[in-house]
Each structure stands twice: as C-alpha cells, then as structure tokens.
C-alpha cells in the first residue's frame, strides 16, 4: 500500500513498494499523460514534479515516497492548458508526435520555477529530454516565449 498526494488529491494504491512512480501513475491511477520511454532515467518522457522538482518517475520507487510530497503530473499542471509553458507550446506549435512532450513540458516548467528567466546555457544544463521527432529548436524558442507569458 502507498499513499500519494497527486495533483492536489490524496490517493491510496495497493501496489508493491518497488513499483516505479511512473507505473503507479499510469496503471493504478489511470493517468496516462506521463509516458514510458526508457525505464532508466535517460529520456525524460516520464518527468513529473515531486515538490516542484523535475523527477524521472520511471526510476522512482513509490516506496521511497513518504506520502507528504506533492506530486504533479501533466494532467495537474493547469486546469485548462493555461500554464505559460503550455501556452508557449501552443503558440509555436511545438509537438510533432507529441509522445515526449508531457515530459518536456514538465521538465521546462520545473526549470522556470527555479530559474524564471533562463539563459541558453541554463537551458542546456537543465533540459536533457530526448525528442526523436526533433522539436528541440522550437523547444528552446518555447522556453524563452514562456518566460514572457509568465
């Protein structure tokens, strides 16, 4: 059994403690916006926020949570796609296949919380998500645009 505070709600799930947070979110809680990409914290498609920090949930065992942490997934980032990152992403038409974009948006929104006006060097250091469609050029533009929308 594990208790999670996720997107403002408290949930109890009956699951083995070594189950990664990613799979609890997807399979026990049925929120599939957070994606599986590699399972070894390499690609970032599974990025969520734990107490505001970007976390690669595919290697984060649910047993490591105390139950007090505030977890945010893409479904809880905003009610209506109004987060500045989502707005910037819409304006620049960033997603292609879109599979990595939940993780990308969560990674970027965590960066902007910590560094509200990042330089390109800050972006290079903080954002390492893989996008095989190759939206990276627009992602950089999108981050700078999101700063203006915040």
């Amino acid at each position: 059994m594990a208790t999670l505070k996720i997107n403002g709600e408290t949930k109890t799930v009956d699951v083995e403690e070594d189950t990664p947070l990613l799979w609890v979110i997807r399979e026990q809680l049925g929120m599939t916006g957070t994606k599986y990409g590699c399972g070894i914290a390499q690609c970032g498609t599974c990025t969520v926020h734990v107490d505001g920090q970007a976390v690669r949930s595919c290697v984060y065992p649910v047993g490591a949570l105390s139950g007090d942490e505030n977890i945010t997934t893409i479904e809880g980032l905003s009610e209506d796609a109004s987060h500045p990152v989502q707005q910037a992403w819409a304006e620049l038409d960033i997603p292609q296949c879109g599979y990595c974009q939940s993780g990308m948006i969560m990674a970027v929104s965590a960066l902007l919380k910590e560094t509200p006006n990042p330089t390109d060097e800050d972006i290079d250091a903080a954002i390492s998500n893989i996008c095989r469609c190759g939206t990276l050029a627009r992602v950089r533009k999108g981050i700078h645009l999101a700063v203006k929308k915040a």
Partner: protein
Amino acid sequence: MTKTLNISRRGFIVGTGATGLTIVVLGACTPSSKDDAVNLDPNDEVNAWVHIDHDDTVTIRIARSEMGQGTLTGLAQLVAEELDCDWKNVTTEYPTPGQNLARERVWGAFSTGGSRGIRDSHQYVREGAAAARIMLVEAAATEWGVPASECSVSDGIITHTGSGKKTSYGKVAGAASKLAPPLEVTLKDPSEWKVAGQPKLRLDTAEKLTGKQVYGADLQLDGMLNAAIRQAPKIGATLKSFDASAVQNMPGVKKVVSVRNPFGAENNAVAVIADTWWRANKALEALPVEWEGGVDFSTDEFEAELNDGLTSDDAFVGNASGDLETAFAGADQIVDVTYNMPFQNHATMEPMNATALWTEDKCEVWCPTQDGESALAATAEEAGIPIEQCEVYKIHLGGGFGRRGAPDYVKQAVMLAKEMPGTPIKLLWSREEDMMHGFFHPTTKGRMRGALDADGNLTGFHMRISGQSILAALMPQALQDGVDFATFQGLFPAGVNPRMEDQSIKYSFDNFLIDHAMRNPPVRPGFWRGVNLNQNAIYLECFMDELAVAAGRDPLEFRLAHLKDSPKTAAVLQAVADQAGWGSNDGKHRGLCAMYGFGSYVAACAEVTVSDDGDLKIDRIVAATDPGTAVNPQQIEAQVEGSFVYGLSALLYGEITFENGEAQQKNFDTFDSLRIAAMPKVETIVMPSGGFWGGVGEPTIAVAAPAVLNAIYAATGKRIRNLPIKDQNLREA
C-alpha cells in the same frame, strides 16, 4: 482546433480495474470496439472524404497515419481548400482499414512512408473535396429552385447571387449526401489557395499539451490485461524452455506463454500476461528462460565482407555512362576514399505496442501503425479469421520513422490474445526489446574514386556501395534482375525507372559508374527515415568536397559546375550558401551539401566550431528545400528542424553493433540521441518553385551529416570517414 467529440457517438468510458477509477478517453481515433467505431455510413456523409454536421462542423477523413510529420493537418488543409469551408470548423477522423476494405478502398492506400503521405494522395483527396463542394452547392440551389451556377460559396456559406439568399453547409449536407457526384471537377491553382499553402497551426496540438492524447501504449479497455515480451536476444535463436512455475505466483501474473516468430514457424519469444504491465515485466525479468541456436553474427567480423565488396569484380550497376577506364588511365590525380555507415535503430519514443481482442469469429486490434491495411492483413492472417471479420483501429503514433510499417508487434499481440479469448491484451515492448529487435537501417560502406585532370576537372567518377539490401530481406519480389534499385536512392539515372524518378542524381558527370556489391548480414534491415539517401548523400557529398579540395577549387563552385543540368538543385545550394555567408572571410568554418530525394531539392550549409581539444559544436545550419508545392510552410520548417535532430543523432552517436548475434546497444544510455545542448540553430528556407509535389519528412535528413562533416574538415583539415563521430577526437582523427 479539434472538435470536442460527442461522447455517445465517438467517446467511450473505460475502467482501470485496479482502483475502480473511471476515466473517459476521447478521441476520434480511439474507439473501444467495432460497435463504437466512428460510423462512416455513406448515407451520412457528403462523400467519403467529408462529413458535415448540422452545426457546420466539418469532419475530414484522413487515410494516412499521423506520427508527428503533420500530414494530417496538411491533408485537411487541402480538403478544406477545395471544399471552401471555414477552417475554424474543421476536425478530422481516421476511417478504419476494415471500412476501407468494405468500401472497395474508397480512401485509397493507408500506407504512410517514403514522404508520400501528401504527394501521393493530394490529387484524389482534393478532387473528393471539390466534388463535395459541388454537391453542397447543388443541394442549396435545388432547395431554392435556382441554377447552381448562380450560387457562390465562401467559408461554408452558400449564397444565391441574385436573391441574396444564404445557407450553410450544415443545413444542406443531408440533401447533398443523396446527390450523385459530379463527373468532373476543376481543382484550384495553388496561387488561389487561402487555407492550403498557409502556415496553419496543427490540428492535433491541444491534446499533446495536456497529456490527453491517447497513444497505443496508453490504451485502456474494459477487462484488459497487459503483456510484456522477451524475444530471443540472439539473431535466429529459438525458445528452448521456460519455467512458468517460478513466476506464476508473483503479483498480478495471469499467464506465461511462448510466442511464435511472426516471420517463421518456431517460437522465438516468451510473454507474461498480468494485470499491469509493470507486474508482467517484473515477472518476465524473473522468468528462467533458455534459448537455443542462432547466428554468431558480429559487426566487427562482418567488416571484412563489406571490405571485400568494395573491391569485388561482381556488382550490380545502378548508374553508368562514358568510359571510366580511359578517364582513370589519363588522370593527373586520383582521389580514393572510403566512408562507412553503421546500423541504426529507429528508436521511436513510444516503444512498439498493440492491443488485440480475439474471439472465434472476430479479431480487433488497436495499434499505432504506418500502414493500417497491412496491419489488418497481418491481424487476419494471425487470427485465422476472414479479414472481413477483423478490424484495426489506428491509434496516434508516438513516432514512426519507418519502423511502424512492419506488423511484427501486431501479430504478436494477436497471438497473445488468442491465448485468452474474449480478453483484450495490450502488448508493450520494453525499450530494451525495442532497441534490440528493430528493423535496422542497413550497414554499408562507400568507396569513391575520382579522376581529376591537370586543370582540376573531374573526368571520371566511381562509387562502389558495399553492403546490405533492404529489399532482398524484406521484399525480394521487388528486386529487378537481382538489383535492389532502392540502394541507389539519390544516385539513380533519371528517366529509367518510374519508381526511382524521385530519387535521381542531379550531378552531370562525363564518365562514371555507381554500383552495388550486395553483402547481406543476417540482421533484419528496415526503412529508416530517409532510408538509403542518408548514407548515399554522405558518400556523394563528402566526396564532392574532397574532390574540390584536391582540385584546388571552391566546394560551392565545384558543385555548381556539375549542376548545370539541374538549376533547381543549384538554386537551393546557392540559397544556403548566400544566407550562411559562404566564402565570407569571417573565421567561420562551413560545409555544404545538396541532394535530390523523395521528389524534393534540398541543401544545407553547416557552421561548426572545433575546440583545441577536438570537441565539436555545431553552431548553425542553414537549410533550403524546394518541394515544388508547400502545403504548410511552418510544418515544413518543423520537419526540416526535426530531420536534422534525427540525422545528426545518427552522425554523432547512432550505432548498433552486434556480438555473438546480439545487439549490444539496448537503451538510450548506449544509443544516444541529440539533446538540446547540442542542437544547432536551424534556419530554414522554404522555396517551392511550383509545378510538382515533393516529399518533406525525409529529404533534408540526408544533407545534415555531409554538411557537418565537410564543415569539420574546414575547421580541422581532418576528414571523418568512420561514423558515428562518437568518441573520435576531431583534431587527431
């Protein structure tokens, strides 16, 4: 925008089971069963391409798959253009392969590859839309008792010029659906376009910003179980035994089953079916499995075969002209170099997956696929049920790049579903399975020899490609007298083979030979975004650079001298050179590349910095593309930028090697992909010259790597000929 769908008609409610939590999945492409599928009743549509609701919502049917490349939006723009509807009212839906079969392929081919989504289907798609417009206007005119010729239409509003009467498409769509289609339609000239040709935003973005977009891996059906699979790690090996008793009491485990090779008779995989995928995969990791047989293939050892092919007397001729022997005999200087290209994995972000539900008289599959029709055929074949009783629901793809044209994972899902009749089974490959069991971009080497005269003119040119044929492995029936013509993408003569007309070489050489010594490893090859154009561009365009340097000529001038018969190629090359500042004395190091592929003329100029320690930074790439007709310029830019990430990832890191028949790279830690820190600034020049329809998704990949390699030479004086660049020191290479 995308229409909010009517739940009763197109949505469905599913439970996750484990928590009792109920969620609603919405999406035109995600019906939960045949009964809930989008109703494409011919009596309830203007025609096959267009359905219009009473509220004027226009639903455009898209036969080709959307995997990020933007074809869905582009095709919708073309339909909306000829239909003259209001773009704000447009939404889209996929007809199913089963419906296409039942309606005698009214939507044509579903196959989505070769950068053909728009260029192969625009004609009949636009004609369908134009016919719908004529029928709608005729329906209004009939209602008013006036000649249709006195009516005009704009943004879905029909007006009778004389009386000023107005009505909307939604009000006459029912009557229009009963009319006979016109015998002839006239399409608009692209110069008249108002919706097509515009940088419209994609129709499928909103759901991708909120996590609502449903991919195959996300599918949840009532009562569904999850499966994880392990395929024989060694090429050709089969399943000897497994001990299900060791895992059958693990949490959630329902069944452990062997899985037959989708392309052969023997079992070559084992799968665990459980309540959740995580539990299935955990049990699979704990499952004792023994394999037997297989091929001791090693990429290191195979290199000797590739090298043999470089000098073999026996090779298929792809393109030849003039007298090579005399040219080389009289050469003042001979340049002789060899480049190589390793295996690559597609590595779509979403691993392979499919969900199947099998009963004795029906089989349904939900899957991301680049070819719904071949997925349906594979479903029927594996299900052992007539194709008319099978159905495939296409789910949005988390990347394709050519990998999802193969139905191996679809067949596996059906096999698993047959083990548990009546229960939907979702099969999801782990990243490791996906990386090890791809259809790999083939390995080849290219040896180029050039004869230069004393004035630096190229008098003889020989390119020998040695390596794997995709067609020989996947579709041997497509070989022509043993020749795999696809090997010669970008190198083929014009005017010889209609299937290769969009892949011809644009340089004019006096005496030349381009041939292929086929050397086939046991590795399964596949069509990988850009296919053979990728390495052929490296071979051709790096060599042109080497020749120019050897001849003491400017690489731009040297290329242009051989492009006199292809002004369109010269134009894209000149465009990137001009914008990038080619030839300016500003201390920047630049490299060029120009190619023709998939029916489009493309070029790139890369700018790089190489540190004293040999570290590479790709600063900027200026790219130009002339696809003839530009349906959505901003999406073309997105494809160019994206193609560079794909092409540069391969150049910098991409490599699958084999030892003892087993792929050595199993995840993104060893098969890396370009991250944002390494992403160059990309400037895209979209310069459609009109009169033809070229592809967009693939051609520009090919020009990224050669331009960068040539720029590295400009920066260092060293040639990198072994790919990927990976750990090579660019100063000491």
